[in-house]
């Protein structure tokens, strides 16, 4: 079997917090705690979870915007975590990140042309200025931006247009993997649909792989091939999207899917209502991190953490019940 494009093994990111106690009391926040998955070229892995589950931290750790505490990231058969200096820069060109907030992620003092062109300026992949502009025009067209707006500033654009600028910036040096961190969460539904269609089209045209991080389960279902469900830094379930949505095995996944407000005609089982809120990651429950809210929790769940086990054809689940 061929190597996957990206293989993440046992990725961890711990933060230490001062507790304010005398003599330097410290606690550790395990934002990402032992995540592993593979991503094939041209595929999309969706990551869902509620706020504070570590999904964004995971995205940024993979691209090493945040240095991982431990774990191995194999990109294209190369250990990405071991690289530094020029090698890291070169390898990083294969990965790009699209951010959630299209207002905060674009430099307000740069024109659209320069924002998009910055990537190719750094690597200087063009011979003449005209060549640079041609490339920028090309990606602007691909991203559905009006070419008349090349010299405008970000504040002159709507949220959807800004997200397109973010996308154009990500693909100007064609990457292999794009990590999309909640790219449509700040947008209205009709704009959201356009951006999702654009992402799918670019994937087809350029053979991109995506890690698509979102809290919106219906969007993730639409765009992904495989979906991982995260809770408090752990991967609770990871499966092919069809088997995940039609046969969710982890009680947390079941609760998440049942909690989506449905349109008429969409299957409605009885709602599973979870009690309480997500526990603080600084003080996670012992054993299975979900046992405090789980309707099926047994004594063992409070003591032993379930491992992510293969339970079916491309279906992995971390739960003592399965």
């Amino acid at each position, binding site marked *: 079997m061929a190597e996957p494009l990206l293989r993440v093994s046992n990725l961890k990111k711990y933060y230490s917090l001062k507790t304010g106690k005398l003599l330097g009391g410290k606690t550790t926040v395990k934002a990402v705690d032992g995540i592993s998955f593979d991503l094939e070229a041209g595929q999309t892995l969706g990551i869902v979870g509620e706020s504070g589950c570590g999904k964004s931290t995971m995205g940024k750790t993979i691209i090493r915007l945040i240095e991982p505490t431990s774990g191995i990231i194999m990109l294209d058969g190369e250990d990405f975590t071991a690289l530094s200096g020029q090698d890291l820069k070169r390898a990083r060109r294969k990965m790009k990140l699209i951010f959630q907030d299209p207002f905060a992620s674009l430099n307000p003092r740069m024109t659209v042309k320069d924002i998009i062109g910055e990537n190719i300026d750094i690597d200087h992949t063009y011979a003449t200025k005209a060549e640079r502009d041609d490339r920028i025009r090309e990606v602007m067209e691909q991203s559905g931006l009006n070419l008349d707006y090349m010299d405008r500033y970000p504040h002159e654009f709507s949220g959807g247009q800004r997200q397109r600028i973010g996308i154009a910036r990500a693909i100007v040096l064609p990457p292999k993997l794009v990590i999309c961190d909640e790219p449509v969460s700040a947008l209205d*539904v009709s704009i959201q649909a356009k951006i999702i*269609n654009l992402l799918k089209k670019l994937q087809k045209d350029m053979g991109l792989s995506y890690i698509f991080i979102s809290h919106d389960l219906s969007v993730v279902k*639409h765009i992904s091939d495989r979906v991982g469900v995260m809770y408090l830094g752990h991967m609770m379930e990871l499966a092919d999207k069809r088997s995940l949505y039609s046969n969710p095995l982890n009680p947390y996944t079941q609760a998440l899917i*049942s909690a989506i*407000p449905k*349109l*008429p005609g*969409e299957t409605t089982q009885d709602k599973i209502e979870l009690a309480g809120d*997500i526990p603080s990651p600084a003080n996670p429950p012992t054993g299975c991190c979900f046992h405090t809210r789980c309707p099926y929790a047994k004594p063992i769940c409070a003591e032993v953490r379930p491992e992510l086990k293969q339970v079916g054809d491309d279906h992995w689940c971390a739960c003592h019940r399965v």
Partner: protein
Amino acid sequence: MSDNILQVRDLCMSFFNKHGELPAVNHVSFDVERGKTLGIVGESGCGKSMTSLCVMGLYPQPQGKIVGGSILFQGRDMTKLPPRELHKIRGKGMAMIFQEPMTSLNPVLTIGDQIMETIRLHEHVSRQEAKRRAMEMIAMVGIPMPEKIFASCPHQLSGGMRQRAMIAMALSCDPELLICDEPTTALDVTVQSQILSLINRLKAQTGTSVMLITHDMGVINEMADTVIVMYAGQIVEQAATADLFAHPTHPYTSGLIQSIPPLNREVEELNVIPGSVPMLYELPKGCLFAPRCPYATARCAAERPDIVTASEGHQVRCFRCMPGWEGQ
């Protein structure tokens, strides 16, 4: 029709600035029936929040002005009441829950103090009585350990708990109408489902009517009895919820519904509505939706359609529902 708790007729609210008069709420009429939930849905900038702020008398002044129409609540026209009277109705007759509980709660007062403040403002009760009732409210919205929450400041609570505290405060004086402006948009799905079922439970318990503003069609389907779809300040479609989803008639409504990724089937590409919502200072001359509408004709670009009854209880603002449309 005395069973309508709220009757809004022909409401027009405009902003006035360098662009001239900008109609943010444009001839909006609707009723809220006693004990029922009215949903208002639309994208950002369509005037749904402004409509609810007008009802509460909380629209931005002096930039904004109600230029026409009436808002009848308990038989009184809210647009003509002096501020003192409005003050008495807000919080007692009708109450509002906002999207972001963090910015709408006072950060330096405890939750208990804020709920007691509302109660003491509207009813002449002793501090002790107010405290007893505030505790009761906190327990009613399903907050564990009411004593602890009573003495907590907003920053010590999670988003879901803050929204519950907001609901407790809003319901503390038994309002007849509860206006919820995107009550769950800032919350996670599992917490959203808790809050929505809480609103439904309290509605059944207290018999209050609900006006629910949201951009989420799924929330509308699960919560509302009747729905208003708004676009650029106008109502474009109004119907019973089941009817609206079974027969979405206005092209904007069907476009909105189709642009949501469906959960029960696979689609290759999502349907999109071309273009974007027009700015208030560049509204088209004819039908406001005409530039984005797949069915638009010359008539749509020239004239604004009135809202007409397409079938019993189903009103649509579209020439396609009027006699004389040939279906070009």
